[in-house]
């Protein structure tokens, strides 16, 4: 799903600290990282990966199906637009603190180009045994049939790690990002998991703020045949305060944990009350 063994991945901002570190980790995960891009650094090598001055050059010479953007906030949108303009089909924006108007532009341009944006402010995607585009830690994963989708980073690692310890491997883990406006929604992810032959069960990790979980619940009710286990963080977060994520904000009474949990339960999802109970619920979850 989204990333396969033969997906040609490029890294934008590959010569930075984060870019270098995660390029190594992606290669170790088995990802086909074919090129890096840093303007002015064309011709260098990072861990054996050739660096180009532009995505267009990288795409012309190496092919580029997917890009991971590690470029700082001021240049992140420009880099993502450059990738989309050069025909990259999936752009993962890891960068945190991307201006929200920039995010809207990038996401709408992707829509125009029939491409996909994941993020911004997201850990990316990992499909154990196939490839990874982003920053999720390699050791937590095992190959399997659980699809995981989440607005969070470390909480997701926590959950994936506990799934792996419980012998529940993952098909694909997708971090959609913690910003108010993101390119790939829960509903998009659920639709892909429902259609994905490798995925049997789905874990959805949400949090307060917005109505993405309520929309996910509606999709689960109407379209999902695969079982969904959900967990929503933020039950005790005070309203009106941003809780770390720009998107995690209960505003004018909307987006509470309570409304999300109720919607998901009404839609037939099992909702875990603690992160550590998720694995057990997944193990028990049957085909609906």
């Amino acid at each position, binding site marked *: 799903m989204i990333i396969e063994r033969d997906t040609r991945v490029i890294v934008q901002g590959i010569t930075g600290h*984060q870019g270098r*570190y995660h390029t190594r980790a992606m290669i170790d995960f088995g990802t086909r990282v074919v090129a890096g891009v840093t303007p002015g650094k064309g011709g260098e090598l990072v861990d054996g990966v050739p660096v180009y001055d532009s995505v267009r050059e990288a795409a012309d010479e190496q092919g580029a199906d997917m890009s991971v953007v590690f470029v700082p*906030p*001021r240049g992140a949108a420009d880099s993502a637009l450059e990738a989309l303009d050069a025909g990259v089909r999936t752009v993962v924006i890891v960068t945190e*603190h*991307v*201006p*929200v*108007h920039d*995010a*809207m*532009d990038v*996401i*709408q341009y992707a829509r125009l180009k029939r491409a996909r944006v994941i993020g911004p402010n997201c850990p990316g995607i990992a499909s154990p045994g196939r490839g990874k585009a982003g*920053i*999720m*830690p390699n*050791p*937590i994963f095992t190959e399997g049939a659980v699809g995981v989708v*989440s607005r*969070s980073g*470390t*909480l*997701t*690692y*926590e959950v994936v*790690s506990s799934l792996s310890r419980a012998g529940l491997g993952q098909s694909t883990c997708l971090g959609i990002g*913690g910003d*108010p406006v*993101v*390119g790939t*929604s829960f509903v998009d992810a659920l639709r892909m998991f429902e259609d994905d032959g490798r995925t049997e069960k789905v874990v959805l*990790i949400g*949090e*307060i703020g*917005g*109505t*993405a979980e309520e929309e996910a619940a509606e999709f689960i009710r109407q379209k999902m045949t695969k079982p969904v286990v959900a*967990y929503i*963080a*933020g*039950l*005790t*977060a*005070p309203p009106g*305060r*941003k*809780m*770390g*994520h*720009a*998107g*995690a904000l209960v505003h*004018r*009474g909307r987006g509470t*944990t309570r409304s999300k949990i109720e919607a998901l339960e009404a839609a037939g999802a099992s909702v875990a*009350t*603690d*992160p*550590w109970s998720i694995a057990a619920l997944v193990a028990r979850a049957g085909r609906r």
Partner: protein
Amino acid sequence: MLLEDQGKRLFRAHGIRVPEGRTIATAEQVPEAAGPVMVKALIPAGGRGKGGGVRRASGTAEARAAASALLGARVSGHTVRSVLVEEAVTVSREMYLSVSIDRSLGLPIIIASGSGGVDIELVGGPAFHRWTVHPFLGIREFHVRELTAALKLEGRESAVGDLLRSLWAVFTSLDCELVEVNPLILAADGELVAADAKVVINDDSLFRHPDLELPEPDGDGIEAAARSEGIVFVPLDGDIGVIANGAGLTMATMDALSAHGGRTGAFMDLGGTDDPARVRRAFELMAASGQKVVLINIFGAMTKCDTVAQGLLDALGGLDRSPATVVRLRGANEERAREMLLAKGIVAFPELEDAVREAVDRGAGK
């Protein structure tokens, strides 16, 4: 969020009519008023009206009294440092108009209502008209026509168009999350006047607006100090401080504490770091916030467990008195971190559940 007077200056610069007014910091500065005036607390928060922050005065003396009462008072959780004194516009009709971002659609949205006195909590309800505006198109004539009809301002299409295009210009040029006029007034003289101005600028875009002076955030020194280090600190009313890395994990830890009978006293999202000094600073700030217990819950990825352990040990070594500290570590360099802590007598739990129970027990004074 900008203060109302800042928002109104922006509006005026974009050609939007706002009431004549003056910002003052002492009651003596209240200008002589020819007629009735509004006296409004300048705080970066909505709901001031309900909180008593907006008063009407019939003349100078009343205005002074109102300013005097407001200055220095707490309104909606903020201390009033200045007030706006402005002409009271003679109202023919009150309306609502805003441009914001619809999260689900990921698009700007105009929300409008032709009837005044609307409860802002109901924005999106049936009394409100909504139009998404595509960022690639901006305001088009058809938006203006439809908004004119929705506001029942037939015949004033040109004024509605000017207003809407100006609000859009503020919204886009300043990277806003919200530009709200509530109420928008059809004045007795037939003109459209923005009687209030609520402008919320996207935090992540401030680098593009270096000249913008944002109101000092209220809140205590620890919050401000944490912010200056890029650490999110939110004070709460319990006694267990939670330090974790990542917003979701921090909230999940708080929720787990609560589910087991504990009460979180502060939320601290450490974010990603590979610097022990930063961890140390975070712990010191948390310790200074007067928590009975501090629960540290770290999942090591980019942030390594041993980095956190080192920072914590540095902090503890430098503090005279420190709160009871419960540590839970998972992930990269977890074993090494556990050994480092154990050498100093600190047990790091591998399971969150155990750490949460321990923290709750300590908080309850067991």
